[in-house]
Every structure is written in structure tokens, then in C-alpha cells.
């Protein structure tokens, strides 16, 4: 199953940081997210784009995880040569993650 079936997400940016929130549609599924969508797994997913491990913040009260990606200095929103300099589309790369093949 794709993560998209369980959760929704929004990307924000600050300089060369990108944050992606991941929010369970049903708060009962929060623990599943916390168990399967680890910082290590998200780091592997985004490894071509980042310079150090992804940080993960847990917000159980909202049924949400917040991931912070560190991009290279040249990939800040105001310096990047990319079409999506903000990284606003990245939330859907996370939602495309397969959840049943996840190692806990």
C-alpha cells in the first residue's frame, strides 16, 4: 500500500531546509506511521537531494510526523536552479512510499 492511502502531507521551506509534514487521515493509524516511516527510511528516499540525515519530529497529538530535509547551500529556495526551487512538490515523493514493504 502507498503511504498516500493512509496519510496526507504538505511541504514548506526555509532557506535550504525543506519540511514535509505527514499526517494520518485517521489518528488511529499514527503509530503505524511512527513505526514504519522512520527518519532512516526517509533519509534513504531523499538521499540524492540532501547533505545530512533527515530529522524527524513526532507530534502524536496531531497524528503527525514532521520531517526536515537539509539541502546543499546552493539548493536554497532563492539560489536553486531547479524548476521547483522551493521543493513544494516533494510531499508527493514521500506519499509515494510503499508502506507494507517497510522494515519497522
Amino acid at each position, binding site marked *: 500500500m502507498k503511504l498516500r492511502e493512509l496519510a*496526507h502531507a504538505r511541504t514548506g521551506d526555509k*532557506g535550504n531546509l525543506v*519540511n514535509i509534514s505527514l499526517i494520518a487521515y485517521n489518528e488511529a493509524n499514527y503509530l503505524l506511521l511512527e513505526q514504519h516511516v522512520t527518519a532512516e527510511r526517509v533519509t534513504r528516499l531523499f538521499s*540524492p537531494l540532501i547533505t545530512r540525515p533527515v530529522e524527524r519530529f513526532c507530534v502524536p497529538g*496531531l497524528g503527525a510526523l514532521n520531517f526536515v530535509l537539509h539541502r546543499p547551500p546552493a539548493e536554497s529556495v*532563492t*539560489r536553486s536552479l*531547479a524548476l*521547483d526551487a522551493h521543493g513544494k512538490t516533494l510531499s508527493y515523493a514521500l506519499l509515494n512510499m510503499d508502506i507494507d514493504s517497510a522494515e519497522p
Partner: protein
Amino acid sequence: MKTVRIGAGAGFAGDRIDPAVELARDGRLHYLVFECLAERTIALAQLAKRQGRSPGFDPLLRLRMEAVLPLCRKNQTRIITNMGAANPQAAARETILLARNLNLAGLRVAWVSGDDVLALLPNHTSGDHRETLVCANAYLGIEPLLDCLRANADVILTGRVADPSLFLAPMVHEFGWALDDWPRLGQGTAVGHLLECAGQLTGGYFADPGYKDVSGLDRLGFPLAEVSPSGDSILTKLIGSGGLLSIPNCKEQILYEVQDPARYLTPDVTADFSTIRFSDDGPNRVRVFGARGAARPQNLKVSTGFHAGLIAEGQISYAGPGALARARLARQILENRLHWIAIGDLRIDFIGIDAMHGAALSSPAPEPYEVRLRAAARFFHAPDAARLTQEIESLYVNGPAGGGGVSTSVRENIAMDAAYLPRQAVTPTFGIEVA
């Protein structure tokens, strides 16, 4: 119980104007806040002012004010906005002139200044020696805004002020919260953070057909908060307006542009969003409560802007059988002819294939019917930028078969970084004029 009604009239410089007019007309607002100043917007305004191309305030100031000033005057709604950009005092004068033209004599227009701290950072550099510092603006907090409100300003025009502070100031003013009442400042900052992007709370940047359905985005209503003296608030929008204000929306927006949700730093407070709660209060009505706060940071964040050369860009499309192979051939030609561009200063993507997430994340996708090559590069010498756009154009005649739809552009690049200054080094000032 006293309730203060605060509306969000804009979430970025180019935002729609009609939702603000609807809020001003029908929202029974005490305050209407326009957040129009992104990180880079103020740098562009500084440059335009210095080069004499503009007075330095928001180019849409007049249009927005014309649209809402008479309604706000009639409904006793005070306006707070960072549309002052690089020249709040000139923005105030412009607003005064406009008010006189609209027969709004007596309108009190305040400006807040002191955010320009370029003189305090004479030797500041970015990591790239080719870049030069052009502006530095400290994020001011609520204090100068409170001065303006106490002076009975009807309109307040600022430059760089932390976005949530634009919303927090009226709460502190109306309810008399102490400037070290961290839990209330934290909750008020959460409400401000939820409102600051306007339509992003009411269904914008949210809709996903089949998963998160939103109707009426073409006539999206912007949000307003009904704030109680404790800071607990109802978030809502006008009945009949388009969009959706729901708990999932609020959850996305409270975490938007946030790193550690327990430590969201503003000039006013270290806000803690990790304990926030949302509950349903009817259709398009969400109650928000439970955010907290701790002492404000000692340093103020400073947004620094650097001349970072020119970015030149060109695109060309290929379609039908072999589209991707021909696009790849075009890339090879470009790479051979543009080898003189430093590594890291040239980027070539295929739109529809890998332009968003890079080749590694995008590889499982099937080949589409059409592919658009996009090349972008950074230059510090204008004729070099023209060489890139010429290379893209010449792919028509000298490149692979069936290339079409070339577009090119060259733009000045201002890059933004963050710096920090002790709060004592920054002195906010304000003034007030009467129409």
C-alpha cells in the same frame, strides 16, 4: 466575553484581492491583515528603491488599499500589513494621499521602520565569494505595532516584521496580555501562523481529487479567527465563500515551514505547537487551543540578501515516438557546447521525466508522449547568460529532429540567507500621519 475578529487578506505579494474585499465587507472584522512580504520580496524592493525604479513599497499597495479602505473605514476595521516593504514611510504617504482622494479625511496611517540593519553588517558574506551583500532586514516583533495601535492607527504599514507578529499584535493590544505571558503569546502566535498564508488554511495548497476534495477553489474564501481573551480561537471563513476549512487543513498549515514544532522561534516568543489541539465547531469552523510558549529568543533573525548573478533558462520540447531519446541527444549537445560553465552552475532536466525530484526518485515512471528539456545556469557576466539562451534557440536548427516550443529567459538572482543580531542592536521606530 470579548471576541476579536482578525481576517487574513493576503498570504503573499501577488495574492487575489477579491477575498479580502469580501472579508472587509462581510467579515465584521476588527482587524484585516495582509502578509505580502516573502524573504526575497523585500530584497527586490530594496534594489528597486536604490536603483530609483520604485519608491520601495509593495507595487500592489494602491490597488489593495483602494479595494478595502472605504469598507474598512465604514466597518471600523483596522488594517495591518507589511506592504511597506523597503519603504514603509513612503507607503504611509501613498496611503494618506489615497485616503484623501477617497474622502477618508481623518484616517490615521502609521509606519514602522528600523528593520533595515545593513549598516550593522559591513563585512557580512555568503559562502560564495562571487556574491555581494545588498540588504539586511531584521525580523521585528509586536512591540512597534503595539505602539501604533496605542496611537490609534487605522492602518499600519511595516517592512520586515515576523509574519505571525502581524496577527499577534492586535490580540495583545485588545486583551492586554503581558509581553512575558509566554503561554498566551505562544497560542496567539499559533493562530497567527495558521492565518498568515491566508487561502492555504481554507483549501488552497490542499486539494487532491479523490483524497482531499475541495469545492469552489475559484472563489476561495480567506480565513478569519474569532479570538477569545485566553487565545483559544475559532477559525472560519465567510458563509457562501469557496474552499474548505477543516481539521486536516489546520494540521497541514500549523506544521507548514516549521522545523521543531515544540520550538517555533519568533521575535516575541518561543512557541510550542506540539501540544496544539483542533476540534470541530460546525461546517468550516475549527476551534484551536492548547499551544504554549516559552521565553522569546535573545537574538533577532536577520534576512540577508545577496546579488547572486543572473539565472538564464531555456526550454525546448520533443513529442511522439522517441521523444525522450531526442531530448537526451539535445542534452548531450548542450553539455558539450556549455562545458565552460562551472560545475554546479548548470542544470539540465527533462520536464515530465525528472525535473521535480531528480533522476533517482523519478526512474520508475513510464516514458510520456512528450518531453520538455529545461536548461538553467547561473552567470556573473551578462553576455555569458545570452550564450546559454542562444544555444537553446539553435537547437531548433542544429539539434535533434522535431524540436519545438523554445522559450528562454534571463533574470537577476537575489539569494537570501539568515543571520542573527542581538535584539538590543535593533531599534524599531514608528510614526503616524493623518489624512
